[in-house]
């Protein structure tokens, strides 16, 4: 049995890391973007972002004031665990105090804020099972600026690949500068309405630049990335070549009569963190992050 106290500690730690240290894949993509820009305005925006990322690490403070709502991805291997839901909730409340994180989670109608980031079904926890000999807990804090620009389309199968590309273009045009570009597209294809949205979010867990293993999907990712960057929306929507840092797609088989497509937009603050916990209490943090 992995002690609950150890799990909670590790969850507080990934919440702190995710808010303050950006994974290296995102940092490198931003640095490349900065090098590729020639005009003053986009260079200034990307420099402000990169300086801010450095400052966040140095001071141990959240890189963005919107520390998001918390989506967890838990993968239970061949280990004994107990009470994960409540342990994760406690960790979120504790990290909200200690990091500190902004209390973002509110009741959807009364807009009442409990002040802890813990509410009904929030943090949201996805459970999966594996044959690993450890418990893996990942967290993705999701800010509203980018999430608000995420979209779903229930295409007819006849629209096919072209329809998906059209939808990607429309989504970026609709988003413009609002989701703090440069952004990342998590593209979910197939399944059902809810599955496509979920796949889009899950795709964002994949390191930037790592292509989908199937050639057809990988090509679609490449094509959308290259074309959208020609729009000229640029960092913060103020013009430039760096609009999209990456596209990651995941798919599921779907009903023969439908073609759901979802795009989950992630802003430059592509925060995520991961811990692996072993039965002997050892905690491993495998993600390479900026130091």
């Amino acid at each position, binding site marked *: 049995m992995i002690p609950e106290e150890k799990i909670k500690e590790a969850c507080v730690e990934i919440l702190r890391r995710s808010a303050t240290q950006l994974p290296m894949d995102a940092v490198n993509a931003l640095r490349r973007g900065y090098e590729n820009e020639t005009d003053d305005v986009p260079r200034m925006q990307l420099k402000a*972002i990169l300086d801010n990322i450095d400052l966040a690490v140095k001071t141990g403070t959240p890189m963005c004031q*919107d520390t998001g709502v918390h989506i967890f991805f838990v993968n239970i291997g061949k280990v004994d665990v107990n009470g994960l839901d409540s342990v994760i909730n406690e960790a979120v409340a504790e990290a909200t105090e200690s990091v*500190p994180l902004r209390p973002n989670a509110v009741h959807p109608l009364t807009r009442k804020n409990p002040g802890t980031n813990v509410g009904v079904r929030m943090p949201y926890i996805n459970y999966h099972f594996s044959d690993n000999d450890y418990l893996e807990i990942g967290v993705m804090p999701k800010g509203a600026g980018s999430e608000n620009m995420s979209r779903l389309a229930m295409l007819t199968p006849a629209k096919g690949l072209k329809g998906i*590309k059209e939808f990607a273009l429309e989504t970026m045009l609709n988003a413009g*500068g609002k989701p*703090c570009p440069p952004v990342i597209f998590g593209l979910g294809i197939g399944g059902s309405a809810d599955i496509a949205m979920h796949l889009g979010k899950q795709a964002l867990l994949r390191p930037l630049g790592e292509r989908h293993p199937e050639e057809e999907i990988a090509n679609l990712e490449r094509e959308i990335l290259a074309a959208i960057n020609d*729009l000229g929306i640029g960092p913060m929507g103020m013009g430039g070549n760096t609009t999209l840092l990456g596209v990651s797609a995941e798919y599921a088989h779907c009903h023969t009569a439908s073609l759901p497509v979802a795009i989950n937009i992630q802003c430059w603050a592509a925060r995520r963190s991961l811990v692996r916990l072993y039965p002997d209490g050892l905690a491993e943090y495998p993600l390479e992050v900026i130091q």
Partner: protein
Amino acid sequence: MSEKRLTVPLSEDDVRALDAGDIVYLDGIVYTGRDEVHIHALEHAKEGKEIPVDFKDGVIFHCGPIMKKDGDKWVTVAAGPTTSSRMNSLEPEFIEKFGVRAVIGKGGMSAPTIEACQKFGCVYFAITGGAAVSIAKGVEDVLGVEWFELGMPEAIWILKTKNLGPLIVGIDTKGNSLFADVDKEVEANVPKVREKLGI
């Protein structure tokens, strides 16, 4: 493109002298205010009720910061802009009613706000989205908080700023908007992008 340092309260002349694309650094009081502050303040005005701060010649920052209490003093941890377009339907009236001279945010604002800026002498400053730690460095002191019951992100935080910036004039008083310019360029690029996508 020129670089200027301005002190709040801002005069109408101060802001009318700015052009879209100029870089500005601010000193003085800046109030945070997003959706709820706009809604509440306008409701109060309608009912003839006082609001707790005076926005006249002042600056409103679309921002829901992370604040921390250090003893009984509030400290700014992170304070980046929020998406301004959420206030699109409220801002023109807000500018008119309360006489704000500058709005700070991200992502730009729609035509009615551009018109209000022109008519009442107000500018829109864009500040880099998410650059919250750097921006917090421009906050020297937190002088107070009002409407705290709206929650930390939605309250009015009274910030004393020093060298807050760089801010880019996104909308000036002459009807220019950097964002509208980019929109036009983007629109012109769409056919090329479609061709590349084969759609």
